[in-house]
Protein backbone atom coordinates (compact mmCIF):
# COMPACT_ATOMS: atom_id res chain seq x y z
CA UNK A 1 0.00 0.00 0.00
CA UNK A 2 1.26 3.47 -0.81
CA UNK A 3 1.62 5.69 2.22
CA UNK A 4 0.12 9.09 1.95
CA UNK A 5 3.00 11.54 1.94
CA UNK A 6 2.64 14.33 4.44
CA UNK A 7 4.52 17.57 4.70
CA UNK A 8 5.15 18.00 0.99
CA UNK A 9 4.27 21.66 1.14
CA UNK A 10 7.55 22.53 2.81
CA UNK A 11 9.84 23.89 0.14
CA UNK A 12 13.38 25.11 0.07
CA UNK A 13 13.60 28.71 -1.03
CA UNK A 14 17.06 28.30 -2.58
CA UNK A 15 17.40 27.83 -6.32
CA UNK A 16 20.13 25.22 -6.56
CA UNK A 17 19.45 21.50 -6.14
CA UNK A 18 21.25 19.23 -3.65
CA UNK A 19 21.67 15.55 -4.44
CA UNK A 20 23.55 12.43 -3.38
CA UNK A 21 26.13 10.88 -5.71
CA UNK A 22 28.05 7.61 -5.50
CA UNK A 23 29.00 4.67 -7.68
CA UNK A 24 28.44 1.70 -5.38
CA UNK A 25 24.71 2.02 -4.76
CA UNK A 26 22.21 0.88 -7.36
CA UNK A 27 19.72 3.70 -7.85
CA UNK A 28 16.85 4.08 -10.29
CA UNK A 29 14.90 7.20 -11.25
CA UNK A 30 11.39 6.41 -12.52
CA UNK A 31 9.66 9.45 -14.03
CA UNK A 32 6.02 9.37 -15.14
CA UNK A 33 5.59 5.82 -13.81
CA UNK A 34 2.80 4.65 -11.49
CA UNK A 35 3.77 3.30 -8.09
CA UNK A 36 2.71 -0.29 -8.87
CA UNK A 37 5.02 -0.42 -11.90
CA UNK A 38 7.90 1.02 -9.87
CA UNK A 39 7.38 -1.58 -7.11
CA UNK A 40 7.18 -4.36 -9.71
CA UNK A 41 10.49 -3.35 -11.34
CA UNK A 42 12.18 -2.81 -7.98
CA UNK A 43 11.15 -6.29 -6.78
CA UNK A 44 12.08 -7.97 -10.07
CA UNK A 45 15.49 -6.25 -10.16
CA UNK A 46 16.17 -7.08 -6.52
CA UNK A 47 15.42 -10.78 -7.06
CA UNK A 48 17.25 -11.10 -10.39
CA UNK A 49 20.47 -9.41 -9.19
CA UNK A 50 20.21 -10.50 -5.51
CA UNK A 51 20.26 -6.90 -4.26
CA UNK A 52 18.94 -7.88 -0.79
CA UNK A 53 16.54 -4.98 -0.25
CA UNK A 54 15.27 -1.64 -1.52
CA UNK A 55 13.44 1.55 -0.62
CA UNK A 56 11.14 3.59 -2.84
CA UNK A 57 11.05 7.36 -2.46
CA UNK A 58 8.31 9.51 -3.92
CA UNK A 59 9.73 12.69 -5.43
CA UNK A 60 6.48 14.02 -6.90
CA UNK A 61 3.29 12.67 -8.48
CA UNK A 62 4.18 9.53 -10.51
CA UNK A 63 7.90 10.20 -10.02
CA UNK A 64 9.79 7.75 -7.82
CA UNK A 65 13.38 6.93 -6.86
CA UNK A 66 14.53 3.41 -5.93
CA UNK A 67 17.67 2.67 -3.86
CA UNK A 68 18.96 -0.90 -3.41
CA UNK A 69 20.90 -2.28 -0.45
CA UNK A 70 23.77 -4.38 -1.85
CA UNK A 71 27.15 -2.77 -2.55
CA UNK A 72 28.16 -3.19 -6.19
CA UNK A 73 30.94 -2.05 -8.51
CA UNK A 74 30.33 0.80 -10.97
CA UNK A 75 30.28 -1.64 -13.90
CA UNK A 76 27.71 -3.87 -12.24
CA UNK A 77 25.70 -0.83 -11.18
CA UNK A 78 25.37 0.40 -14.75
CA UNK A 79 24.70 -3.15 -15.97
CA UNK A 80 21.70 -3.33 -13.63
CA UNK A 81 20.35 0.11 -14.57
CA UNK A 82 20.76 -0.73 -18.27
CA UNK A 83 18.86 -4.02 -17.76
CA UNK A 84 15.94 -2.24 -16.07
CA UNK A 85 15.78 0.62 -18.56
CA UNK A 86 15.85 -1.79 -21.50
CA UNK A 87 13.20 -4.17 -20.21
CA UNK A 88 10.88 -1.54 -18.75
CA UNK A 89 10.85 0.51 -22.00
CA UNK A 90 11.05 3.65 -19.88
CA UNK A 91 12.48 6.46 -22.01
CA UNK A 92 13.06 8.78 -19.05
CA UNK A 93 15.01 6.09 -17.19
CA UNK A 94 17.12 5.48 -20.30
CA UNK A 95 17.93 9.18 -20.50
CA UNK A 96 18.80 9.26 -16.79
CA UNK A 97 21.00 6.17 -17.26
CA UNK A 98 22.95 7.80 -20.11
CA UNK A 99 23.48 10.94 -18.03
CA UNK A 100 24.85 8.92 -15.11
CA UNK A 101 27.23 7.12 -17.47
CA UNK A 102 28.56 10.48 -18.69
CA UNK A 103 29.10 11.74 -15.13
CA UNK A 104 30.49 8.39 -13.93
CA UNK A 105 28.42 8.50 -10.76
CA UNK A 106 24.70 8.18 -10.19
CA UNK A 107 22.86 11.04 -8.51
CA UNK A 108 19.46 11.28 -6.90
CA UNK A 109 17.92 14.55 -5.80
CA UNK A 110 17.46 15.12 -2.06
CA UNK A 111 16.31 18.73 -1.82
CA UNK A 112 13.23 20.30 -3.34
CA UNK A 113 13.33 21.47 -6.96
CA UNK A 114 11.12 24.12 -8.55
CA UNK A 115 7.60 23.09 -7.47
CA UNK A 116 8.66 19.57 -6.41
CA UNK A 117 9.21 18.75 -2.73
CA UNK A 118 12.11 16.71 -1.37
CA UNK A 119 11.66 12.93 -1.91
CA UNK A 120 9.96 10.94 0.90
CA UNK A 121 10.20 7.22 1.65
CA UNK A 122 6.96 5.45 0.73
CA UNK A 123 7.98 1.77 0.61
CA UNK A 124 10.64 -0.45 2.21
CA UNK A 125 11.46 -4.07 1.42
CA UNK A 126 14.19 -6.49 2.57
CA UNK A 127 17.52 -5.60 4.17
CA UNK A 128 18.33 -1.95 4.84
CA UNK A 129 21.70 -2.23 6.61
CA UNK A 130 24.29 -1.52 3.92
CA UNK A 131 23.94 1.00 1.11
CA UNK A 132 20.46 2.10 2.14
CA UNK A 133 21.79 2.89 5.61
CA UNK A 134 24.57 5.04 4.09
CA UNK A 135 22.09 6.69 1.75
CA UNK A 136 19.83 7.59 4.68
CA UNK A 137 22.79 8.91 6.70
CA UNK A 138 23.71 11.28 3.87
CA UNK A 139 20.06 12.19 3.49
CA UNK A 140 20.08 13.23 7.13
CA UNK A 141 23.26 15.30 6.65
CA UNK A 142 21.74 17.04 3.62
CA UNK A 143 18.45 17.65 5.45
CA UNK A 144 20.36 19.26 8.34
CA UNK A 145 22.26 21.47 5.90
CA UNK A 146 19.02 22.49 4.17
CA UNK A 147 17.37 23.27 7.51
CA UNK A 148 20.18 25.66 8.40
CA UNK A 149 20.56 27.21 4.93
CA UNK A 150 17.51 29.54 4.85
CA UNK A 151 18.65 31.13 8.09
CA UNK A 152 22.02 31.80 6.53
CA UNK A 153 20.55 33.20 3.32
CA UNK A 154 18.29 35.51 5.33
CA UNK A 155 21.09 36.74 7.56
CA UNK A 156 23.24 39.57 6.34
CA UNK A 157 26.25 37.85 4.82
CA UNK A 158 28.86 40.13 3.42
CA UNK A 159 29.07 38.66 -0.10
CA UNK A 160 32.34 40.42 -0.80
CA UNK A 161 33.98 38.24 1.86
CA UNK A 162 32.69 35.05 0.28
CA UNK A 163 33.23 35.94 -3.34
CA UNK A 164 36.84 36.25 -4.26
CA UNK A 165 37.05 37.42 -7.85
Amino acid at each position, binding site marked *: MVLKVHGLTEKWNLK*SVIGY*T*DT*ETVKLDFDNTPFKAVRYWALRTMKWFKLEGFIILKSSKDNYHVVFDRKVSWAENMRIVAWVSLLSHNGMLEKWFVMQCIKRGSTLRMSSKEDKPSPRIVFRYGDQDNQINDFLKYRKIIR*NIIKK*LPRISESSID*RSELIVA
Partner: protein
Amino acid sequence: MTKKIAVYGTFMAKVPVKQRYWKRRRDGIRQRYWKKTTRMKSVEKRGRYEFHGKGKHLYRAVVKAHQLMPKGFVDVSAKEFLEHPERYGSEGSWIDRKVES
Protein backbone atom coordinates in the same frame (compact mmCIF):
# COMPACT_ATOMS: atom_id res chain seq x y z
CA MET B 1 34.67 5.41 -4.23
CA THR B 2 33.60 8.07 -1.78
CA LYS B 3 30.07 9.26 -1.44
CA LYS B 4 29.43 12.80 -2.55
CA ILE B 5 26.99 15.63 -2.16
CA ALA B 6 26.04 17.23 -5.46
CA VAL B 7 24.95 20.87 -5.75
CA TYR B 8 23.72 21.65 -9.24
CA GLY B 9 21.38 23.78 -11.26
CA THR B 10 21.14 26.73 -13.59
CA PHE B 11 22.62 30.10 -12.77
CA MET B 12 23.33 33.53 -14.18
CA ALA B 13 27.05 34.06 -14.51
CA LYS B 14 28.90 37.23 -15.36
CA VAL B 15 31.29 36.75 -18.25
CA PRO B 16 33.42 39.30 -20.11
CA VAL B 17 32.02 40.50 -23.42
CA LYS B 18 34.21 39.43 -26.34
CA GLN B 19 34.94 41.67 -29.26
CA ARG B 20 36.09 40.51 -32.66
CA TYR B 21 38.81 42.12 -34.70
CA TRP B 22 40.66 41.32 -37.90
CA LYS B 23 44.34 41.36 -38.56
CA ARG B 24 46.09 40.88 -41.87
CA ARG B 25 48.62 38.10 -41.67
CA ARG B 26 52.01 38.09 -43.35
CA ASP B 27 50.68 35.71 -46.01
CA GLY B 28 47.96 38.23 -46.88
CA ILE B 29 45.02 36.40 -45.31
CA ARG B 30 42.71 38.52 -43.18
CA GLN B 31 42.19 36.50 -39.96
CA ARG B 32 39.56 37.04 -37.31
CA TYR B 33 40.56 37.19 -33.61
CA TRP B 34 38.60 37.69 -30.40
CA LYS B 35 39.63 39.79 -27.43
CA LYS B 36 38.09 40.08 -23.99
CA THR B 37 36.79 43.52 -23.14
CA THR B 38 36.35 44.94 -19.66
CA ARG B 39 32.55 44.99 -20.11
CA MET B 40 30.66 42.17 -18.42
CA LYS B 41 27.40 40.49 -19.45
CA SER B 42 25.10 38.01 -17.71
CA VAL B 43 24.58 34.63 -19.33
CA GLU B 44 22.59 31.57 -18.31
CA LYS B 45 24.81 28.59 -17.53
CA ARG B 46 24.58 25.16 -15.97
CA GLY B 47 27.08 23.84 -13.49
CA ARG B 48 27.64 21.31 -10.81
CA TYR B 49 29.65 20.85 -7.62
CA GLU B 50 30.43 17.38 -6.27
CA PHE B 51 31.72 17.58 -2.71
CA HIS B 52 33.17 14.81 -0.60
CA GLY B 53 34.59 14.98 2.90
CA LYS B 54 33.59 15.36 6.52
CA GLY B 55 30.22 16.65 7.68
CA LYS B 56 31.33 20.08 8.91
CA HIS B 57 33.30 20.73 5.72
CA LEU B 58 30.39 19.57 3.60
CA TYR B 59 28.04 21.92 5.40
CA ARG B 60 30.34 24.92 4.94
CA ALA B 61 31.03 24.00 1.32
CA VAL B 62 27.30 23.80 0.48
CA VAL B 63 26.73 27.19 2.12
CA LYS B 64 29.55 28.67 0.06
CA ALA B 65 28.32 26.92 -3.09
CA HIS B 66 25.08 28.84 -2.65
CA GLN B 67 26.99 32.06 -3.29
CA LEU B 68 29.69 30.94 -5.72
CA MET B 69 28.65 29.49 -9.08
CA PRO B 70 30.65 26.47 -10.28
CA LYS B 71 33.08 26.75 -13.17
CA GLY B 72 31.65 23.80 -15.10
CA PHE B 73 31.74 20.35 -13.50
CA VAL B 74 33.62 20.74 -10.21
CA ASP B 75 34.53 17.52 -8.41
CA VAL B 76 36.49 18.53 -5.31
CA SER B 77 36.88 17.74 -1.63
CA ALA B 78 34.87 20.11 0.55
CA LYS B 79 38.00 21.08 2.53
CA GLU B 80 39.95 21.98 -0.62
CA PHE B 81 37.00 24.01 -1.91
CA LEU B 82 36.80 25.96 1.35
CA GLU B 83 40.52 26.71 1.24
CA HIS B 84 40.49 27.99 -2.35
CA PRO B 85 36.91 28.82 -3.39
CA GLU B 86 38.07 31.25 -6.11
CA ARG B 87 39.64 28.35 -8.05
CA TYR B 88 36.34 26.52 -8.39
CA GLY B 89 33.64 29.18 -8.43
CA SER B 90 32.82 32.63 -9.69
CA GLU B 91 30.25 35.33 -9.01
CA GLY B 92 26.63 34.77 -10.01
CA SER B 93 23.24 33.67 -8.75
CA TRP B 94 21.26 30.44 -9.00
CA ILE B 95 17.98 30.64 -10.90
CA ASP B 96 14.90 28.43 -11.06
CA ARG B 97 15.11 26.34 -14.23
CA LYS B 98 14.35 22.76 -15.09
CA VAL B 99 17.48 20.69 -14.55
CA GLU B 100 18.15 16.95 -14.74
CA SER B 101 20.04 15.04 -12.04
